[in-house]
Structure formats: C-alpha cells, structure tokens
C-alpha cells in the first residue's frame, strides 16, 4: 500500500509534464525521451515486467532480484546473482535516480534505461535467456500483457517487441526518483536543523578537504551527486596488475571477433576490470568506471563496481589513502589524477560518513536504520 502511494505521487509528477513540474527537493525534472513519453498505463506495465521472474532461464530472476526496492533497489551482494545462482563481476547499482544518468552500466555501455533493460535478461550470468524471442514468447502468451501492450503501444500480441518491453520498463524506472533527504532540506530547503552538527561538518569536508564534490557533484539548485564521467579510482585493478596489456589485447581481439561486450565484462573477471576501455578502447580509460550517485548511499551497500568495500567507513578510508584501503596497499598505475591521499583525521572521517548518511530520502530512511 505504501509503495503504491509513492508510485502514484511519482506518476503524477511525470505525467503532468517533463520539464515544468517540480521534482523532489534537490533534484531536477526527470528527463524523458521524446519517443517514450510517460503514461500511467505504461508505467504500470513496466512495473509488472520489472518484477516478472518468468522472464528468465530458471523462472526465478527479475529486474527486482538484483534491484530490490526493499534493499535500496540493489541486492546488498558483493556481485549480483543471476539464474541458477550464477554470479557476474559487478555490484548492482541502485535504480533510484538512474533516470538522471547519461549513460547506463558501470562502464556506460548503454546510453539510456531502454538500452540497459534489454541486456540482463539475455546475459548468461543474469537472466540467462538465449535471446529476446524467448522473453517475448512468454509476454505474447500472457493475457494481461496482451491487453496492456495493446493499450500502451497499440500492438497486437504477435507484434510485441523487445523495444516496447524496454520502453515500459524504462518508464517505470523513471518513476523511481528520490530526493528530499536531510541534506536537501538543509541545503535547498533552508532548514539549518535538517542535518546534525556532524553532518554539517562532514558537508564542509565533502566540498573541501575530502575533494568528493569534484566528481559527486552538487549544483546551486540541484544535486545528482555524479559527474556522469568515468574515473579510475584504484578499485579492482589488482587482478590485472602487470597483465593490463595482454588483457586489453585479448579483449579487443574478442570484440573484433564479434564478442558481446555485455557478456564479456560480466563473465570474464579480468576483462571486467578494463572498465570504460571496454566500450571506447581509449587507453586513457583503462580501469575507469562511472561515477555513481551518492543519493541513498547508506542503503545501497556494498560499494564500488566490484562491491569490494563493505561500509561507508571503508569507502572513506579508501579515498583517504589515495585509492587503496590500506596505506600499504599498491596503487594503480592508471589512477585518476583526481585521486590522492587526503590526510583526513579520524574525527573528520566520521563526520564525512555522517554526511553521507544525510543523503537518504524519506522513502528509504527505514532501511538505513536497520
């Protein structure tokens, strides 16, 4: 019941118009592609598809398996589990506010939610279907889906396409937006009491000595907490350290031979660590991954593209040591020029964590206190 109320509110926001309706405090209006306008029926259809476990090889995996509303739209696993318990290489990013991302997946290999949503059902360690036709067969035989697709897309059962499926799921995901955190009420709402003293001190560190804001951006009127860019911050490189050349060469060879990047990076641990390079083949982007939003970060543990950091305390230590958990660990040769030791004191580290806990939206506050 509570969930549907949230959805209804979001639907009202979006359907009324894409650019003029007020978004949650601290967020800009949700960008909606011109060729996929939001409608209540389409969102409802997307909701059903998003939660439909039948659309997988073992009939047990849906979008919500790894992007579970009860877990901040993540799965709280280091790396996600697909059909038959198979694991991939990457930590499930939250769907909350994914609507604002200019690229999707940790390496940005898809430009929008529509493109993103088509990949997992047919990835061999996620949904596990051999192809999209297997998914469409199920959809085309379900009377509820037939009715809904006719209403939303005007499509007969036989004409239901994977692009329509993707549009519906993306429309649903564009309703999963959340702002109005204590930070938003403090910074945009003008309420000086919205954050604790420790959080206020942490905010100063976030924009100052901690250097966080340069990538996890806060603007004058809204904050996405991402720059939508790709950086090598030193996560996950150890498995290919000293073998970057052969790993990159082998990857490119496979790609030239027709290998699917989505499959390769989720099934081959070494190649996964090539990051953005896998998409662009730009050697200045080896090991670079997308800057995730920090909104609701307190409910989306564990962290980083490989889920290698368990707590926010570990994340702060990682940055404080200049891209490594312990100051005796090796540093990636490909490390971004933005990453360097921060020399934060222990009280400062605590304040910074406190600030990160001020980014939780009311919808997910109960999850944070668990």
């Amino acid at each position: 019941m509570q969930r549907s109320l949230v959805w209804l509110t979001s639907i009202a926001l979006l359907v009324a118009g894409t650019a003029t309706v007020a978004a949650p405090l601290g967020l800009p209006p949700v960008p909606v592609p011109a060729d996929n306008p939001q409608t209540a029926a389409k969102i409802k259809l997307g909701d059903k598809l998003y939660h439909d476990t039948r659309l997988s090889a073992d009939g047990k995996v849906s979008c919500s398996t790894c992007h579970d509303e009860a877990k901040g739209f993540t799965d709280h696993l280091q790396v996600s589990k697909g059909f038959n318990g198979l694991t991939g290489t990457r930590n499930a990013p939250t769907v909350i506010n994914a609507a604002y991302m200019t690229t999707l997946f940790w390496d940005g290999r898809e430009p929008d939610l529509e493109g993103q949503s088509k990949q997992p059902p047919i990835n061999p360690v996620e949904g596990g279907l051999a192809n999209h036709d297997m998914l469409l067969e199920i959809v085309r035989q379900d009377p509820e889906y037939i009715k809904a697709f006719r209403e939303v897309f005007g499509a007969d059962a036989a004409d239901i396409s994977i692009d329509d499926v993707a549009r519906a799921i993306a429309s649903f995901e564009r309703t999963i937006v959340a702002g109005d955190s204590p930070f938003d009420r403090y910074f945009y709402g003008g309420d000086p009491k919205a954050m604790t003293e420790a959080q206020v001190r942490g905010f100063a560190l976030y924009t100052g000595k901690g250097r966080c804001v340069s990538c996890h951006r806060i603007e004058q009127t809204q904050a996405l907490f991402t720059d939508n860019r790709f950086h090598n911050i030193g996560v996950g490189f150890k498995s290919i350290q000293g073998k970057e050349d052969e790993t990159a060469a082998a990857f490119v060879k496979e790609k030239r031979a027709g290998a699917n990047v989505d499959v390769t990076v989720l099934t081959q641990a070494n190649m996964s660590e090539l990051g953005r390079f896998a998409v662009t083949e730009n050697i200045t982007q080896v090991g670079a991954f997308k800057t995730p939003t920090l909104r609701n970060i307190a409910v989306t543990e564990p962290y980083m593209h490989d889920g290698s950091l368990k707590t926010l305390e570990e994340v702060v230590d990682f940055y404080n040591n200049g891209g490594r958990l312990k100051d005796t660990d090796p540093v990636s040769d490909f490390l971004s020029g933005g990453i360097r030791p921060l020399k934060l004191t222990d009280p400062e580290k605590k304040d910074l964590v406190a600030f990160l806990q001020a980014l939780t939206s009311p919808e997910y506050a109960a999850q944070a206190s668990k």
Partner: protein
Amino acid sequence: MSKTINRREFLKRGSALVAAGSLPLSLVEVAFGKAAGENFTFAYISDSHITHVKGSEFVRNWDRGLIRAVAEANLLDPRPDFIFYGGDIAQLGKAEEIDHGLEILGGLNGKVHYVMGEHDYYLDLGDYWKKQLGPDHYSFDHKGVHFVVLNSILTFDDWTNNKWPTAAERMHQMARLDNPQGSPFMVGDAQREWLKTDLEKVGKDTPVVVFSHSPIQKIHKGWNFWTDDAEQVQALLKPFDKVTVIYGHVHQIQYNQIGNISFHSAMATAWPWPYPSTYTQVQTWLPKLTVEMNRADPFFERDATGWQFINLHTGNVDMSYMLPDNSNRVVAFDTRAGKPVDTKYQAVANRIPPQTHY
C-alpha cells in the same frame, strides 16, 4: 528517435569513431618509410620533472604522471618499435631525480631513446645524464627514415660557465620563466657542424625526423619556447623533401609548418603550461595552426598532461595525443594543405570551449 539511435550507435561504435584519437589497438597498419611492408610506430613521452623532496621522497603528482604514461604506452598493440623520451626527466638535474625517473621509465616495454632537457642539464652540465644515457646528440636510421637527436638547450658559454656562484644557482636560474637573468637556448656551432656532416650522407628523399627539447622555431622567448639559432638549423634541414621536428619543453599542443618542415610539440606528463597567447603581458608568436586545448580542470592533476603515439606515413607525422581526463586529439599531416592540422578541432566551430565555472 534518430537522435537516440545515433547516440546509442555512437556509444557502441565509439571505437570506430574515435579510433584515431584513442588507442588504435590491433588496428595500426602504418605505411612508413621508403621500403614497402616496413610499417612501424613509436611512442613519445616527455617532461616528467621528477622532483626530489628528501630521502626517498619525491613529488607524488609528477611520479604519478610518468607512471601513468608508461602504463598506458605499454598497452599499445602492436608494440611501437621504440619510445622517445623528450627531455626534463628531472626538475633540478639531481642524480636522485634522474635515477628515480629512469627507474619508472624502466617499466616501458621496448627500447627508449632520450633527449636532453635543460632541467637535466644545468646542474652538472649533463654529466650524470650522459653517464646514464650516453651522448646528448646522435642519429640513427630505422626502416628508411633518418632520426636525429639534438641537444637544443645549450646557451652562451659565458652564461653557463662564468655567471653563477654555484651549479645549483645556475640550474635554478635556467628553470625560471620570464627571467631577466636568463639566456636563450641554442643548438650551437659545434652541433650544427655535426648535423651538417651527419646529413651529408642522407638522401634528400629520405624522411628526416628531428628530436629536440626546445622548439627549433621561435615562439616565446621569455619562456624559452625558442631556439636562438633555429633558422640556421632549419637551413640545414631545408634540402630534404620531408622533415619533421618533434619537441618537448612547452607542455602543450603546438604544431606548425615552415617550408618543408612540420613542427609538433609533445605534452608533459607533469603539468600543463598556459598558452603564450593567453598570457597577455607579452607579445606572442604562437603558430597560427595551433588549436589550443580547452582549459584544464585543476582537480584532475593529469588533465592537460599526457603523451603521444606517433604514426609516420608517407614520411609525415601524425601525432595522437593521449590526454587523460580530457579528449584525445590527433594532429595529422594534411597532404592537400601541405601542413599538419587538428583532425577534429581545427574548425573554430568544433572546438571545446574553455571551462568557465570555478
């Protein structure tokens, strides 16, 4: 709709569209030199300015720049035939700095050729550098191309030998910009005589590539973006059909064409310099062909630094600038125009505007 598809296709086919500016991994087939079938490539790293603090401590930022360039250059596939290092390994010419820099450069897979920079030279007049790396001017032939390395950062004997109380003071003076006590760089009579003799045995249709630390052209005297006897060196190169001069020192992208000679600069791995044209106190002669980079984001210490991957085809140079945290660029020889041009940003409308929000 078409916009969405275009963007998706762009993301997926990004490699095809930006291949020239990124790693042409596994795809490089460079037709080069006179002998058919002898294709090759090389990489160029420069201006690391490794700075000793004390004991085993060095300035981290400059270390990281060189470490990253070495790591990235090692990904080139097929392997470059060799790598050039364009000078200024060290900041103040100290043996510790040269040793530390060479240790990092030791990670490069492949043969490295070195050019002397003024920061390597003016403490001990290049003694330690030469002890480690050999002569400061030399030439060699490779697959039909004649390569020449010059030490272009010499200056008047009197300034070098008689003006300063200590070697360290001399180094510090030469390291300063806009220094009224400074002195212009030059190749000098002895090396020009050597060059003249060296070139006598080279056929005029052999492509010639010259490496120097300072530009063998006159751009900005106050920062020694300058070689005082540039015209005399150019005159020695004039009889050849195709000549390219590649230099470091300026920490920015520059390119130019003077007669038969193409000029290309290299990025530093350490830090970027502003363009003289943006430095309004003095008149500037920055070559008009140069498209200046967008302003660096100071948060990303590697922004506006980088290194180069070089294709020589038909004897002319295409410079691929590898620019972390920025957009890679390619300055290629345009055979119709007879000069190097930026392949993407030459037209004013295509340029990336400088950042304005700070």
